[in-house]
């Protein structure tokens, strides 16, 4: 077992974990953040995307031990008293149906807008190339990200 200290959505946690424990399992099962789902085993789908030290990462492709000392934000920590502009935009543009890809998609979009506050449609699509959705066909997701960008969401 390895001892790690991780900050998740503003709260600190100290745990002994097996080195092989995936960060996503640590978040879901040890920290209790079930808002971040798991969709695949080859880091293609992006459902598990969280922010780690401000950058998007696929939490199934990070070991919990690699997150020692890190500051993680999950979908559950994105709103700050009120909905994040991306959350609001996804709702207003009907950018989700079953919602399974949504946490990862929103986090990935947040990272995209941090890097590129006014993306073109092409840049939005490419910025979300690592997040798969089976329900929406992406049309409304792209519209939502552009809408959030217009509203001035930069992180």
């Amino acid at each position, binding site marked *: 077992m390895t001892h790690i200290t991780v900050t998740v959505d503003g709260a600190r946690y100290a745990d002994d974990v097996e080195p092989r424990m*995936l960060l996503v399992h640590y978040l879901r099962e040890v920290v209790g953040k079930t808002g971040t789902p798991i969709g695949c*085993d080859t880091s293609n789908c992006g459902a598990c995307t969280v922010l780690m030290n401000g950058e998007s*990462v696929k939490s199934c*492709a990070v*070991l919990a031990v690699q997150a020692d000392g890190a500051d993680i934000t999950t979908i559950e920590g994105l709103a700050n008293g009120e909905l994040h502009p991306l959350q609001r935009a996804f709702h207003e543009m009907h950018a989700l149906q079953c919602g399974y890809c949504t946490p990862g998609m929103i986090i990935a979009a947040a*990272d995209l807008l941090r890097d590129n506050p006014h993306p073109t449609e092409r840049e939005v699509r490419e910025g979300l190339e690592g997040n798969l959705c089976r329900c929406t066909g992406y049309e409304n997701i792209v519209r939502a990200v552009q809408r959030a960008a217009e509203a001035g969401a930069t992180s």
Partner: protein
Amino acid sequence: MIPSKFDYVRPSSLDEAVRALADAGDDAKVIAGGQSLLPLLRLRLANPELLVDVGGIDELRGVTDEGDSLLIGARTTHYQLVHDPLIAEHCGLIAETAETVADPAVRHRGTFGGSLAHGDPAGDLPAVALALDATLIARGPGGDREIPAADFFVDYLTTALEPAEVLTGIRVPKLPGWGYRYEKFHRTAQAWATVGVAALVQRSNGQVANARIGLTNMGPVPVRATAAEDAATGAQASRDSLRAAASRAGEGTEPPADLHGAPDYRRHLARVLTGRALAAAAGV
């Protein structure tokens, strides 16, 4: 889905990392960003007994201007390769290529050194390192070693690194005035390159003075398309001449057969993409 058990150490210095690897023999693997290794662990295609995490070793980070060359720390992430001002200015081919790797989240974690040490010929950066004639620097129990890229990629997923060696940095020449292009052909945005072509061209008046071509996924290791390079050298810097030179791009390659292409199709793609990459690199 769930890796086999392994032990884990996170040394704070390079020498500590080398010692840990030396003690473990063949059963240890280095983990940097883990973007290549973790999927293998999760599918239990790799089952090391010890992971040596170089994530805490500062010596492996940073990009240094050495005058004629850049020294890029092995732990430089793909994202950093895309955004680093020195790389953008002096070695744009690396930045352009790194931006095509996987997706943004993977690029935040995956590293230059990790990609090269993993030695997957379907990865984009090995062919670039080869085309640049980069020098790979490793630290082992016996000290530092410099390995030319041409000698580094030995076989499929096998590099010249000894089990107890850690790749510390990559030296790339600046090649001022050379044009470059990475042509990546893949079925979807996230997909591996079916074939990729890294081209560097030095022009002299209306001619190609020098050409370097590295091929992705055309064999068990990245390949230099030397026949095409020779044909391009001295050729007119025009689309038609470069297309003609590119017709030799498939020579000496052993492309794999898989869902995305049989060998003959891949050789054809290599020819077409090399023509396009050379033209773009030559600015025509």
